[in-house]
């Protein structure tokens, strides 16, 4: 699914934030990415959702070397990736339903199908009654659920979430991760970036730990008070 081989990353001509990063994530696996602030969690995720290119090394997604992809192929690959951004990135001029529908519209799906999917998904995240509201009128937690609904609506093969629990209390954070686990069980590969050790300890998923520019893969530990693990690392 995702393979990094000696990958390095830097912004422009700055120093390398990540170096010699190597790991392989199997399809359907569930991984946390953690590390101190500035360790490169977001940068790692950016490379995974093809917003940035590695400055060195080789990276492949869905079995394709990303450097060999044409511009159109990169676009098609991005449609198989759902992203929950740390700052949600909802479009304020669109309604909640229109925001959620965006990936399907981009993929050129028919309006009737899109409407049906959006209604189902908004009900799933508990926002059916807010379908016509503007994101700015929602609370942080509600906006986050809209962002999640938008990330999963196209049934992505890979779901990346950058600090998805950063704006919600512990109870909702755990519920959110259960939600991600459900998706993982359906075959979606999950990569969740978080700095919360407490939250990770409640699940038994393997962790990609970033520090001093490199990544260490830690096998999942028994969960302290959570569901059984759903992912596996190579």
């Amino acid at each position, binding site marked *: 699914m995702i393979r990094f081989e000696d990958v390095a990353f830097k912004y422009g001509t700055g120093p390398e934030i990540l170096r010699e990063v190597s790991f392989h994530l199997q399809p359907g696996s569930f991984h946390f990415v953690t590390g101190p602030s500035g360790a490169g969690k977001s940068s790692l995720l950016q490379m995974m959702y093809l917003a940035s290119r590695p400055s060195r090394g080789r990276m492949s997604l869905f079995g394709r070397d990303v450097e060999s992809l044409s511009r159109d192929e990169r676009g098609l690959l991005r449609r198989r990736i759902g*992203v929950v951004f740390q700052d949600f990135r909802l479009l304020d001029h669109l309604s909640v339903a229109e925001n959620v529908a965006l990936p399907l519209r981009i993929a050129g799906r028919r309006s009737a199908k899109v409407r049906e999917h959006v209604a189902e998904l908004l009900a799933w995240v508990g926002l059916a009654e807010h379908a016509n509201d503007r994101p700015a009128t929602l609370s942080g937690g509600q906006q986050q659920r809209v962002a999640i609904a938008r990330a999963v609506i196209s049934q992505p093969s890979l779901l990346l979430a950058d600090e998805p629990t950063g704006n919600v209390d512990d109870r909702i954070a755990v519920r959110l991760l259960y939600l991600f686990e459900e998706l993982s069980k359906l075959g979606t590969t999950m990569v969740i970036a978080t700095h919360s050790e407490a939250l990770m300890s409640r699940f038994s998923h393997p962790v990609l730990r970033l520090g001093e520019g490199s990544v260490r893969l830690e096998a999942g530990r028994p969960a302290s008070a959570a569901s059984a693990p759903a992912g596996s690392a190579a």
Partner: protein
Amino acid sequence: MPAGHADVPLARDPSERFLPWLVAFMVYFAALALVSGMALHKLIERWDSGLTGQWTVEIPAPDLAGNATEQSARIERILALLKETAGVTSAAQLARGEIAELLEPWLGSSALDEDLPLPALIAVTVDDGSPPDLDALAAEIGRIAPRALLDDHQRWLGRLLDLARSMQAVTAVILALIALCAVLAIVFVTRTGLSVHQKAIELLHLMGAHDGYIARQFQRHALKLGLRGGVVGVVLALLTVLPVGHLIGRMENTLLAGLALSPVEWGLLALLPAVTALIAMVTARLTVLGTLARMP
């Protein structure tokens, strides 16, 4: 899902208000330049073809001491000479009324009273394929009437045509400059839009939107604004051209007579908003595609 809202909210940009007016003024000036160019083209065509094969012999009016009978005899001899000259197909003296008509645009009808001495004019039609030798014929006419002038109109007509063609070229340059300004304005507005909506564009890009999908949002917006501005510009141009055309239409016997636009030319004018909108659309598309190409 309602598709009423564009993914990139361009309709809220300030360009929505000022760009149509900018385009309208550009189209207004372009329309005026186009009408001028078409009128000049007509004028050139008419002058060019109207005087081909037409020569004129001008015999100045006799002064106060002159003898009118002698003048008439000279005219008769010149007419006889012309009719015998190979290459001359016809030669006829213009009546005083015809000469007065020719002078009317410059002198006005009131100035042309009976007392005004007018030169005698002989209209000569020559065979275009084998015209007579101008200099030899002029010398022979000079022997009959020393102050007579034989004119094939080429000298002044050539200058007039050169002037008209230069003006036509200037008109074309003005049109090109207006088009260039329009393109630059659209590029500027599109780049501003790309900058203002960078986050939305980046989001669409990361969701897998192809460059064409994003470009379509901008090109549709530019098409709409270009069309709106174009229509306003052409309407303003019509409000200028129609009264001027009406005034020219009243000048029946002048050099400017017959410059009214043909249906095809009106059609070209009516196409201006569509052409403007098309230019705006293509410019916006190319600008967006050029900018997006720099995204990973």
